[in-house]
């Protein structure tokens, strides 16, 4: 009798499988029970609304326990219905459902529908469905409330100067964090559901008169193409919408900082937030944009530039040091200063492995430690740090497996690697480092140069939503250079970055048009 609903997007969006509710309440109740396969967390609260002088009307409230606030259900729904409904006077209010909607229910948000599929979706999203006998329509009441984590400081993108809040798993809170920072009516949140089974909320956020419309359309298009069962984290979405899925480098930026997202939005970028994920996505995203930290804009420009220089140097150090070490040790010892080469040679005296094996051992143990440190619970994680430090720092050298210089190299690489502000970007650097080490161990400095060429060449071919990954350096964009390795003081950043092709390119100095400024000057001269 009842058609099994196919929960795919097309079905939900199109009118084709519009499934009408029955007028009989017990049909409807049975329908929903069957839809949810009598799942034990489905609550069907049946009651009767007694209207004096007429009759008793059967009603039912269907919801999932755990997704709703029982407080709200009691105080804003059940209590008014059972007590206030008695004021219903038939001649005046012909329709009891709209009477309930308009005069009885006290919560903020509810809507009426007669599409059974929409109701099913609403129940799954934590709304309560109110059915009244004799009506083939249903009220869905927004009473969602579930346990969630409190807003905490960001774990992977900490700053000293700047806001300390970060996204949480509940998307509404995340939207609130953005909205509170950008009180602009043109800030748009577009909500869609993705996941054939999961039906997870995904929100596209952009500022309507800044963001390029084509970009927004492209994001929308790519999101709508996602055809997956569930979206458990924004990482799923990231991997489905990125331009190059086979690259080591990520072309979609992820961040857990609302201020970073808002900064991106006003630069003309588009953010994608996914329910149940504390990481928002920002597109388009370049290597440069991922190397910048929001703190760079909060501290004064000399300090910001100093830190940025250090950070870019660190990226090179993390990328190159082990291979440079191998090249110099195995191929070009004449390039090391004499005294240093003597002490390096002396420290390597008696080591059993060639430099590439030595470097691999150390780099691998570093990666082991890093991974173990993430997986282990806090208190044990520290133990790993200490044990690992002993292994790398002391024991390996004393046991004659590696040389002390190699320890310095690995330590430098590790420290520099942590300076890269985006966790996802540091993966690319970490993995390509091994590639460089192999090439160098075969061809020396020449191989290192070739390896860098390959990596750079690859990066130059990458795009993020049509924007070149290496911009503003390749292709060179002089306009955007003032916010790359070096950031000009704020009054020099009058334009939004050009790579977003923003509709409104100016972000400062709009209140005083240039013409009137000139007039003022003229007036002064005359005086």
């Amino acid at each position, binding site marked *: 009798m009842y058609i099994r609903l196919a929960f795919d997007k097309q079905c939900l969006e199109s009118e084709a499988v519009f499934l009408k509710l029955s007028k009989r309440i017990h049909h409807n109740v049975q329908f929903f029970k069957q839809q949810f396969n009598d799942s034990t967390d489905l609550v069907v609260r049946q009651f009767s609304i007694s209207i004096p002088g007429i009759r008793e009307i059967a009603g039912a409230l269907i919801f999932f326990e755990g997704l709703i606030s029982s407080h709200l259900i009691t105080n804003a729904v059940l209590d008014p219905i059972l007590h206030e409904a008695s004021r219903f006077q038939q001649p005046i209010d012909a329709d009891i459902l709209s009477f309930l909607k308009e005069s009885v229910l006290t919560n903020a948000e509810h809507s009426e529908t007669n599409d059974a599929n929409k109701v099913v979706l609403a129940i799954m999203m934590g709304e309560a469905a109110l059915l009244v006998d004799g009506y083939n329509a249903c009220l869905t009441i927004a009473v969602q409330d579930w346990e969630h984590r409190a807003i905490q400081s960001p774990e992977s993108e900490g700053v000293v100067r700047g806001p300390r809040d970060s996204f949480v798993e509940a998307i509404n809170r995340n939207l609130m964090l953005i909205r509170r920072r950008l009180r602009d009516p043109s800030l748009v949140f577009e909500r869609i559901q993705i996941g054939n089974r999961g039906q997870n909320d995904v929100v596209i956020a952009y500022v309507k008169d800044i963001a390029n419309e084509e970009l927004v359309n492209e994001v929308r298009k790519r999101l709508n193409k996602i055809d997956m069962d569930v979206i458990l984290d924004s990482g799923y979405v990231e991997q489905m919408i990125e331009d190059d899925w086979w690259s080591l480098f990520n072309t979609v930026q992820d961040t857990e900082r609302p201020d970073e997202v808002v900064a991106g939005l006003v630069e003309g970028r588009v953010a994608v937030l996914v329910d149940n994920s504390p990481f928002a996505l920002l597109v388009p995203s370049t290597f440069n944009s991922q190397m910048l930290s929001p703190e760079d804009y909060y501290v004064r420009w000399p300090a910001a530039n100093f830190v940025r220089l250090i950070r870019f140097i660190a990226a090179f150090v993390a990328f190159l040091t082990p291979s440079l070490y191998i090249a110099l040790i195995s191929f070009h*010892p*004449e390039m090391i200063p004499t005294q240093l*080469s003597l002490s390096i040679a002396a420290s390597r*005296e*008696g080591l059993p492995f060639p430099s590439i094996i030595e470097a691999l051992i150390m780099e691998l143990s570093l990666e082991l430690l890093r991974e173990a440190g993430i997986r282990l619970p806090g208190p044990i994680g520290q133990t790993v740090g200490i044990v690992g430090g002993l292994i790398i720092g002391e024991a390996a050298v004393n046991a004659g497996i590696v040389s002390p210089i190699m320890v310095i190299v690995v330590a430098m690489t590790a420290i520099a690697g942590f300076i890269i502000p985006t966790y996802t970007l540091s993966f690319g650097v970490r993995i390509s480092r091994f590639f460089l080490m192999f090439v160098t*161990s075969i061809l020396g400095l020449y191989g290192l140069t070739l390896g860098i060429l390959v990596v750079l*060449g690859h990066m130059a*071919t990458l795009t993020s939503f049509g924007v070149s990954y290496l911009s503003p350096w390749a292709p060179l964009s002089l306009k955007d250079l003032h916010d790359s390795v070096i950031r000009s003081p704020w009054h020099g950043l009058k334009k939004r970055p050009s790579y977003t092709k923003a509709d409104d390119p100016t972000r400062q100095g709009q209140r005083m048009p240039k013409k009137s400024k000139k007039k003022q000057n003229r007036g002064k001269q005359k005086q």
Partner: protein
Amino acid sequence: MRRSRFYPLWILIIASFAASGCWDAKDIDRRTFVMGVAFDLSDTEDQLVMTIEVPVLTSFATQTHRIADTRAFVAATTGTSVAQMAARIETRTWREMFFGHTQCIILGEDLARESILPIIDFFDRNPRIDRRLALFVAQGKADEVLHIKNPLQPLVSVHLNQILNTLTNTTRVVKRNFQDNLRDLESNGDTVLPRVRSTDTELTIAGGALIKDYKFIAWLGENETRAVAFLYNRISGGVLTVNLEDILYTYAIRSASTDIKPVLKDGQLTFRINVKTEGEIIEAFYRGPGGAIEFDIPGIQSKLNQEITDEILHLLTKLQDLRTDPIGFDRLVYRHYPKFWNQHKENWKEQAWPQAKFEVTADFNIRRTGILKEVTIYERQG
């Protein structure tokens, strides 16, 4: 699409495997660092003796080594060519000879008198050589130099190299490195190399060895060497002491530059040489009766000018007599008077060079006299 984009890159990389010379991967501890190398004539005919100084690596491993530790290993072998001797000596150090950090090459007097060319060629040809190394001529046997022990610097070769490359305050030797020497030698076969002398316990680095057509012909004394250094424009410091009215003034050079200009007039070639220095008086003393007197700055300057002018003229006359041109006056003539040069280039050293005249001027400028404005004259009581 994507694959075709990388085609040129792959071709480049694959081609590079065939074309490159980078297959010589050898870890740093698998090489013998030849820090210094000395060459002598062997007693047997047509044979050379090569002596190398190699650091004992284990003694460099820790900062706390005992003074008694042997820190350098000196080995010698004979052979006919440098490469052959290097190959022979490898069997004694069991590691590949590595000349990339060689600090100095010392040539024995006898060998240098025969020809320095066979030795130079090996090092000139090797792309890994550090061209700042120092090329010395030893008075007597070269290998003796490498056997000297210096408690301050365990490696003699490093010690020798540092004298040329880092010591600024001496004019006893011409501070020029292998690269400079090669430039001279390749242009006309003449140059001046620093001289090293070894006694039983010590090294003396002073004076120069005059090389003519890749052969050592004469020693130059310390004052002559200083004149050479002025002409090479290689004075970076140093002190000069002059006696003016029984007061000894010591002048410290802070900067110096020499300008040489050839002038051709009526077929007569004249070189105008102008030496300019700036410096200060760092010492002035006099023993005898008197009081305190003011510095006679112009007097001291003209005395200094006179001394240097005389020294340089003396040296130039000697060079003309020996028919050598290590300073490279020929290159100046070639640059300024190419026609004259073309007429005389065949017999430059034999005819044109000895007939050249010189106008030497010196311009010593005393900027400071320290914090004392006058010379204190000490009067002995009684």
